[in-house]
């Protein structure tokens, strides 16, 4: 219960601040807290086993990896929020890296070629959007097929082998460089996360995305152009994936078809771990950020615990099941409490 302020007495600065703080704490999403707690728990387990895990060098590495997944998950989170799904992620990511390498080989300057690659990613996203919203193909199939078309293009330009696919040094700097103690890619990711969460919670567009995902029919009846909002999420998704592909290629210093194949289900898993329902309208981007951290720490556990690839996969599956179940339960509790509060008023 927030402390009630007497109307006659004007609250002091400190009182007002305390009230604001309290309100903010009360409004923090338990689902997101739970998702971060899961990541923290895995991190603590790893640190107990191997103290170097908590060293800054390792954390920085994890942050870099998490940022690649982070952009893919950002793409997925927005689409899922509005009630769709995007399975073209790994192909668009591979496209981002390979197309950049292609431009580099043709002697394009680095910065414009990166911009063009992201723009082309937006175009691919728009194609997804046209099929999934205008032509009403089910999003799963539409994005899968568009992913297939992108794959066909990548096979056609014949850059299956990684040899010779050099990426410009600017992309390498973007993925591997640091500003002070923090990696550049993680900083961009953090900035994007802040912007996205502000857009989702504070703008009309963000609220409309939730509305469209929660109940498209009600949203349409209240005058929201459902198709247009969904189309927008696919476009953004394409651009994000292309950018994630640029980062990934900068990190691995090359680009090849299949370099991003783990991100197909990784992005969906991160989003679900963060509490998003695949039917839409639920979840926040911070939840997806937490999901990315969980999955990245989990992958980092492999060498620490001396696990085989098989046991890591089993762990991966169990963490997804437990994490998603936890997120659903927390969400239910949160919703129940809200209903009770509303009834009490």
């Amino acid at each position, binding site marked *: 219960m927030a402390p009630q302020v007497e109307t006659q007495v004007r609250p002091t600065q400190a009182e007002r601040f305390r009230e604001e703080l309290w309100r903010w704490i009360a409004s923090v999403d338990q689902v997101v807290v739970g998702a971060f707690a899961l990541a923290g728990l895995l991190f603590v387990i790893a640190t107990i086993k191997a103290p170097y895990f908590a060293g800054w060098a390792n954390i920085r590495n994890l942050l870099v990896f998490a940022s690649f997944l982070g952009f893919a998950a950002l793409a997925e989170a927005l689409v899922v929020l509005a009630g769709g799904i995007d399975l073209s992620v790994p192909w668009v990511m591979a496209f981002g890296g390979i197309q950049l390498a292609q431009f580099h080989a043709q002697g394009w300057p680095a910065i414009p070629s990166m911009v063009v690659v992201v723009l082309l990613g937006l175009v691919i996203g728009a194609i997804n959007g046209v099929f999934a919203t205008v032509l*009403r193909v089910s999003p799963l199939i539409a994005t899968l097929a568009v992913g297939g078309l992108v794959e*066909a293009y990548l*096979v056609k330009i014949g850059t299956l082998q990684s040899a010779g696919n050099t990426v410009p040094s600017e992309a390498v700097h973007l993925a591997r460089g640091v500003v002070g103690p923090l990696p550049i890619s993680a900083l961009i990711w953090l900035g994007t996360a802040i912007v996205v969460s502000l857009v989702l919670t504070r703008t009309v567009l963000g609220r409309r995305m939730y509305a469209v995902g929660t109940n498209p029919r009600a949203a349409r009846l209240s005058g929201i152009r459902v198709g247009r909002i969904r189309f927008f999420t696919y476009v953004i998704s394409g651009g994000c994936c292309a950018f994630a592909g640029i980062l990934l290629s900068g990190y691995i210093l090359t680009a090849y078809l299949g370099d991003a194949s783990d991100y197909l289900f990784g992005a969906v898993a991160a989003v679900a771990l963060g509490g998003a329902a*695949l039917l839409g309208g639920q979840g926040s981007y911070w939840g997806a950020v937490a999901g990315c951290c969980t999955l990245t720490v989990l992958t980092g556990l492999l060498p620490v615990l001396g696990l085989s690839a*098989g*046991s890591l996969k089993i762990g*991966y599956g169990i963490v997804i099941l437990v994490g998603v*179940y936890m997120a659903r339960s927390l969400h239910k509790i949160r919703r129940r409490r809200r209903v009770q509060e509303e009834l009490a008023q």
Partner: protein
Amino acid sequence: MTVTALRGKPASVRISSAPSIGTMVVMVLFVVLFAVAVALQPSLLTRTQIALTIQASLPLIFLAAGQTIVMLTGGIDISIGGIMVVANVLCSTWLGGPSGSAMWHLPLILLIGIAFGAFNGCVIVFAKIEPFIATLATWAIYDGIALILLPNPGGGTPSGLTSWAESTGGIVPMPILVLVGLLLVWWYARSTGLVKRIYAIGSDPDRARLSGVQVDRVKLAAYAISGGLAAIAGIYVAFTTGTGDPTIGDGYILLSVEAAVIGGVSLSGGYGGVGLAVMGALILTFIDDIAAALLLAPWVSIAVTAGLLLTVVGIRAHFERRERI
């Protein structure tokens, strides 16, 4: 809730309805592609060639059949790739190698597949996690189990069974018999209560529940069947290749969805059938055959498959408009 239940079409109508436009599109496509493939390669009509074509597509056919059963309930099964490799790996390590001294383990492998499928069903029904996420997680678990059982491709299957599965001669070649067997089982299963209930909960879960269908149990059964069929696919691959390989499953996951969808099975449930999914799987095989016969570059068949998927589903969405939003 009740409003939608009242507006929904009766579940029984869709099972016995005349072929819809979507179904006719698939049939026309199937015939046209088959004709083109035969025109390019007349030897395709010989018994051996037909058998070889079917043999190559049988794993996908089994997986697509299982995927169809799950899609009919309105779900999706990502984990079939994992169940398939577990069965495949068990075949190569558990049956006593080429001598086949421990052949009696074979039914156990099938049971394990069914049990894994039932576990999927439990997670979906009891933990109430969406099928996509739930089976995504269990896929990782099953894949991990297969990797632990057999980290690298290897092992051996009973040589007798290999020659049995590979034989494409005889009056009626083996792969054709297997396919006909699958279709006969489906033809019989269609009239059983379970499959009718599967259609019912797919077309309208609320209506089904109101009319006394135990939705949870039926869903669980659907996932168990899918697990069993995935295990059969894995076993079949083990027999035809003679070894086990823990990495073969990944490529089949989305391919099985594509086959079912090209065949006209609805992702939102309640519409389609195993026969159509078989056609979808064969269509995907024909595309590769035609591309190979014309010596086309590899990217062409990828593009054609994707384009076909968009066209078929787009046409269907345009004509049927079953889902307005």
